[in-house]
């Protein structure tokens, strides 16, 4: 079968192309939602793109389709490379890719038809959940078999994170979607809110973060031509991430009637998040000390460096906004939307792109189709992300302070309108970046052959 054709690094290539396609689709879905926040009747009365449906389509397509595909694709390159053993089965890998894409396609279609579990990032209905679990299981099995057959005894820190990511993601996906409860995908009452946010935060902390950190741990030492700064810090970062990140989900519903002791755990855990973040960043940045020009000279490395800076910003903001006194202003408004974009696009999304641009030339054996276009995408996404952060944070502060001063939600809508227009304009940069990325990645993968035929 052509779809399952075995070729060296075929799995990674297919994941990268999927990621590029889903980035275009996911950002366009977000763009559609942003249009509706400005002109609600422009796309009015079209059921399948109404805001309540396009929003989960956007978040899931971006998290699982764009960032997820790129990260898992890179994992299928990093593990075999780091243990000096070919991937156990490229055919199994291709099945993993197709299942993963099937899940995103079906999830998108069912959401647009109004089938939703309505818990953030766990909206996809049960049959889609099963496909996601199958794909994760296959990927894990494939990489585990690769590691079992390994020729390199020592497992590098990236391999830990990748294994961690597979295991924890499968766990958190199963529990978070309450998969033993197929019809609603949820449990009952306030505990359902607690479970949903244990999952919602876990998607970022146990799925996106460990994969993205694995890529950074691989690319930074290579591009700056220096050994990793500290093994102990790697250990601290890995185990503390798992121990602390899992505790903090309740900070999303801190002001709801959840048990006080749980709120205390969530807030202290959120502050303690500075430990794993600092361990990773100190380790990476001390590795590159005095060698930043090397990294900036490498297209993929440049993305990864920018991603680590966003990681720092996200993870300083995150613990602070878990504090009750800060949440009085920031909860329920666009401040949080800005924070979510920092985590998924600024940190893990930009690192995912860095992984693609670093690894692509190494698996095709040719340079990128265009370094210029990759640089252009870098700046478009970076400027777009910075714009999003500024505009949405400002809008959030205006809403939060207005409400706290006794203004109704309705009265604050005209106040944030100009910011929603700015946000849409800035979004154009990110969407353009996605299109450029798709073209560049497609041409890097397949442009060579057609180019030769033409000549």
């Amino acid at each position, binding site marked *: 079968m052509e779809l399952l054709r075995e070729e060296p690094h075929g799995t990674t290539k297919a994941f990268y192309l999927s990621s590029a396609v889903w980035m275009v689709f996911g950002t366009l879905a977000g763009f559609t939602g942003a249009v509706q926040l400005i002109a609600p009747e422009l796309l009015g009365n079209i059921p399948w793109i109404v805001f309540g449906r396009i*929003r989960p389509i956007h978040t899931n397509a971006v998290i699982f389709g764009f960032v997820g595909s790129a990260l898992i694709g890179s994992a299928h390159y990093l593990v075999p490379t780091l243990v000096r053993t070919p991937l156990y089965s490229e055919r199994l890998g291709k099945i993993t890719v197709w299942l993963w894409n099937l899940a995103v396609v079906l999830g998108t279609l069912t959401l647009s038809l109004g089938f939703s579990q309505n818990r953030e990032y766990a909206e996809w209905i049960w049959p889609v959940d099963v496909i996601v679990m199958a794909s994760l299981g296959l990927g894990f099995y494939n990489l585990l078999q690769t590691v079992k057959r390994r020729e390199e005894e020592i497992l590098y820190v990236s391999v830990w994170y990748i294994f961690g990511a597979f295991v924890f993601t499968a766990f958190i996906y199963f529990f978070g979607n309450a998969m033993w409860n197929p019809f609603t995908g949820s*449990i009952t009452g306030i505990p359902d809110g607690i479970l949903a946010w244990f999952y919602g935060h876990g998607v970022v902390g146990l799925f996106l973060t460990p994969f993205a950190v694995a890529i950074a741990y691989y690319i930074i030492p290579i591009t700056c031509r220096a050994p990793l700064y500290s093994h102990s810090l790697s250990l601290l970062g890995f185990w503390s991430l798992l121990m602390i990140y899992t505790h903090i989900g309740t900070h999303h519903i801190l002001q709801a009637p959840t048990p006080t002791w749980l709120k205390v755990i969530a807030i202290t855990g959120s502050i303690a998040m500075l430990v794993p973040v600092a361990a990773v960043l100190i380790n990476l940045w001390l590795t590159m000390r005095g060698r930043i020009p090397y990294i900036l000279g490498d297209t993929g490395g440049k993305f990864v460096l920018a991603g680590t800076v966003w990681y720092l910003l996200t993870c300083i903001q995150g613990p602070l906004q878990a504090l009750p006194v800060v949440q009085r202003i920031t909860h329920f408004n666009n401040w949080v939307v800005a924070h979510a974009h920092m985590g998924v696009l600024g940190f893990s999304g930009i690192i995912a792109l860095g992984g693609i641009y670093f690894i692509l030339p190494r698996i095709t054996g040719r340079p990128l189709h265009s370094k210029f276009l990759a640089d252009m995408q870098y700046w478009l996404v970076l400027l777009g992300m910075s714009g999003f952060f500024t505009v949405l944070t400002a809008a959030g502060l205006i809403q939060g302070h207005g409400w706290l001063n006794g203004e109704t939600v309705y009265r604050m809508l005209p106040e944030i309108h100009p910011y929603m227009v700015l946000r849409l304009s800035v979004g154009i940069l990110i969407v353009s970046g996605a299109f450029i990325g798709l073209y560049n990645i497609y041409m890097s993968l397949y442009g060579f052959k057609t180019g030769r035929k033409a000549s």
Partner: protein
Amino acid sequence: MKMTPPLLVLGGSLIFGVVLFVVVILPWATMTDQPSDIHRPRTALEERGRKLYVKNGCSYCHSQFIRRIDWDLGAERIAQAGDYIAEQPHLLGTERTGPDLSQEGGEHPDDWHMAHFINPRYVRPESIMPEWAFLGTENITALIAYKQSLGYKDADARMQRQRLWKPKSIEAYEKGTDGNVAWLHDLVPEPWRKLPNPYPTSQAGLTRGHRIYQSFCIGCHGPVGDGMGPAAPHLYPPPLNFTTLKGRGVSGGILYYQIMNGITGTAMPYFKRDLESEKIWDVGNYVAVTFIGETDANTEPRGIDASYEPADGEKR
């Protein structure tokens, strides 16, 4: 520490399991399953409406819990865990692009909701909520039933009040303008009826009133104040036509009171949470001057002038 696949998988699973127990299973096992004082089961129609709320992602813009700091909602009932014992999935929400709905039941009558679902801007001109006409009348009816149940027994009490006043307002409307105006004036306490608008008419005040009218009133009462706004076909009794009120003794105090308090049973909501005092006087005088054609602004008894008011008899 030497990292091996068994250590990664087993160690990771162990930590995950322990944390899952502490932060999810423990709260699940120890939290109350007792209903709160306002809780009641939902009817079949309300349950159907809730399913539509879930399917269409209403919770991305509407939260369902009131916090202690929610001044705009009055914070009259802070959410309790016992309010949520039947919620599956939870609909707590994380964004307030639209208002919190946990105590929405009975705030408006059903016909207001129908107009609002067909096009939210019919009744709330600056709303950015999508239109839901595509759901069809039957589904919207179920959604309205669900919304009117939010707040459980508190909502039921408010709905009872809506149902008490609805027939009275219809009866008054069907008596014609004289009867309707008499009934509307009767709803206002005596001292308010005699109260003129204490501030003189000024261009600035009318401009402010115009702005408020466009943000809040135009959907029902229409751009020329004849009660023929886009929401009107969906509402009964229909919105008041201001242009027939000249010489019928509509005082500044009556306008103020009706805007502040609303007319329960009709689609006229109360605006005391949206608008502060000056804004209500301004929009009231705008309606009086522009649509009714007469105003009692700054007539006796008027007490002491505010420092910014022009001196007696002086025109601005």
